[in-house]
């Protein structure tokens, strides 16, 4: 019983982080129909920028998110203007060109990190890194709690932006139907740049959060990219709530497999990659869609 509580609590905490790192991918996909493979590189860069701010200026990793977020937003806008915008549009489906272009960008970022920070394994050790508190009878690391809180704040803020502001409305319009949105006077190109900026900012923040929990190298991020992709596939790539639910599903599977089976933890990543393939194949349009179809079928049978 205690194991079960521990699994749920740990999964919930991990889900906050997973949702933050996945939502950036979902925003960019929704507005631009692009799969941002450079996401992994941005996560890694976020971790290193946080490290530099901590080492040079003694800035707490959670405080430095205030700097990381706008910085990466600008980076995203510049990248969109310089590279992504110049590609021919895929017309509704993500194009191979954009995938490979962003793949190239990821590699460049990786090499940049090697050149600037070297290939050694880095980590951020604060005075609360090793501390833990009791939560519902489960020992939980303080950084894990803070990461969850920061992730939740980010997602709530985003939810507000998407639901309540003109920018959010425009983004949703472009997501639903780019041509119709443009006919209504939405500057789709500008919205794309802002969406790419937002996605990049989220990835940067997620990278900063990851840096407080894990050690990292310039190769860092690939397994998280796959996890993020797995989540947005499960979630159907649309809503914040869906992404959060997808994140929770993945996190609980990982934690449960670690707690209840004899599968060694080194195979944990293989589990999520396998889940990714299964999810892609079984629910090509995401869980919400599959759920909707199921309820509809049941209604039709009645």
């Amino acid at each position, binding site marked *: 019983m205690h194991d079960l509580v521990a699994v749920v609590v740990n999964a919930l905490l991990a889900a906050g982080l997973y949702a933050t790192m996945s939502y950036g991918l979902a925003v960019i996909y929704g507005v631009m129909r692009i799969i941002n493979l450079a996401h992994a590189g941005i996560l890694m860069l976020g971790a290193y920028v946080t490290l530099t701010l901590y080492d040079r200026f003694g800035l707490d990793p959670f405080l430095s998110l205030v700097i990381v977020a706008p910085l990466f937003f600008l980076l995203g806008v510049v990248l969109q203007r310089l590279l992504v915008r110049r590609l021919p549009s895929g017309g509704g489906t993500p194009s191979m060109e954009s995938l490979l272009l962003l793949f190239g960008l990821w590699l460049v970022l990786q090499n940049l990190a*090697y050149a600037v920070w070297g290939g050694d394994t880095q980590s951020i050790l604060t005075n609360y890194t090793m501390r833990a508190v009791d939560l519902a009878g489960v020992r939980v690391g303080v950084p894990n709690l803070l990461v969850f809180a920061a992730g939740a704040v980010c997602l709530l803020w985003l939810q507000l932006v998407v639901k309540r502001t003109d920018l959010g409305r425009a983004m949703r319009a472009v997501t639903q139907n780019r041509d119709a949105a443009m006919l209504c006077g939405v500057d789709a190109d500008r919205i794309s740049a802002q969406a790419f900026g937002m996605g990049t900012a989220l990835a940067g923040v997620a990278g900063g959060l990851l840096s407080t929990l894990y050690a990292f190298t310039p190769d860092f991020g690939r397994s998280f990219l796959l996890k993020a992709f797995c989540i947005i596939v499960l979630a159907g790539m649309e809503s914040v709530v869906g992404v959060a639910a997808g994140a929770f599903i993945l996190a609980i599977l990982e934690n449960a497999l670690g707690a209840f089976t004899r599968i060694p933890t080194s195979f944990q990543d293989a589990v999520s990659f396998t889940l990714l393939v299964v999810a892609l*194949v079984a629910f090509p349009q995401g869980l919400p869609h599959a759920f909707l179809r199921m309820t509809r079928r049941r209604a039709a049978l009645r």
Partner: protein
Amino acid sequence: MTGLRARLRPSVTVAAAGLLLLLAPRVFGRGILNDIWSVAFAVVLASSWNLLGGLAGQVSIGYSAFLGIGAYTTALLALRGMQPYATLPLAALLGAAFSFVVGLPTFRLRGPYFTIATIGVGEAVRVFAGGVAFTGGSSGIRMPPGSFDFGLNYASMVVLAVAVVTLAAWLRGSAFGAALAAIRQDIDAAEALGINATRYKVAVHALSAGLVAAAGSLFAINFQYISPGSVFDFRLSLSIVLMPILGGVGTVAGPVWGAIFFSYLQIKMLSVPALRDSYLFLYGTLLILIMLFEPKGLLGLWERLPRALRRPPKEASAA
């Protein structure tokens, strides 16, 4: 008649090149032969990948899985006393068999979704190979002593390269190749014409995976030591994709030129210490530039060249 001659010409060129390369050991020293081996290896990988990625348009970033399976099959069987070269067909078969496991589910996905799934498959295989005992774990395994024979390995790799390129040229002109092209251009239209797209994709995937696994087998024999870090490396998957894209995806000559250009660059870069750490930068920049300016790769540039030369520069005519 001319049609037949045009179809035969690439095969003749390739066969002549192969013959010359087989005679090379009489002229050149070991250093140059090693470089030729690397280029032939690259040609096999690039041209095999191109069968699926180019002809059928299914971009996979998980090909190191097949290379690794080939290499491990040979190493493990050789350690149990089998003659290393006799394991080649088995390695190819296992690679092809594994391609079914990968392909049957993932080929239901289209375009970029398929690509992402292949990254997942490649990573899962690498993690698995590093974690189980019979592969020797992450520290890798060594081939049995006495299994090394450079002359034979060199000849096998050259023959394999010639065979793969000839096969690619032949496939491209065949009905099978036409079906693959239809799948690449518009999968819905292809299926409407009665082409069973999944069956064709699975078949060409098995073919190219088997060839890559055979190359992996020769790789294990040549380097005598393999580990998940060397044969299941993500960078390997990456260069397998990059070479055909660099040369000109979907053509017969493109992957060959891409492989030659790429391995030449890599050999040059590895000999310069300052550049050794910037190959990722090179790969990435090449990908970005190709996608932005010439998605048809080197062959596209080559086709553009005469047109650019024929047209007088605008500034000159204005002056």
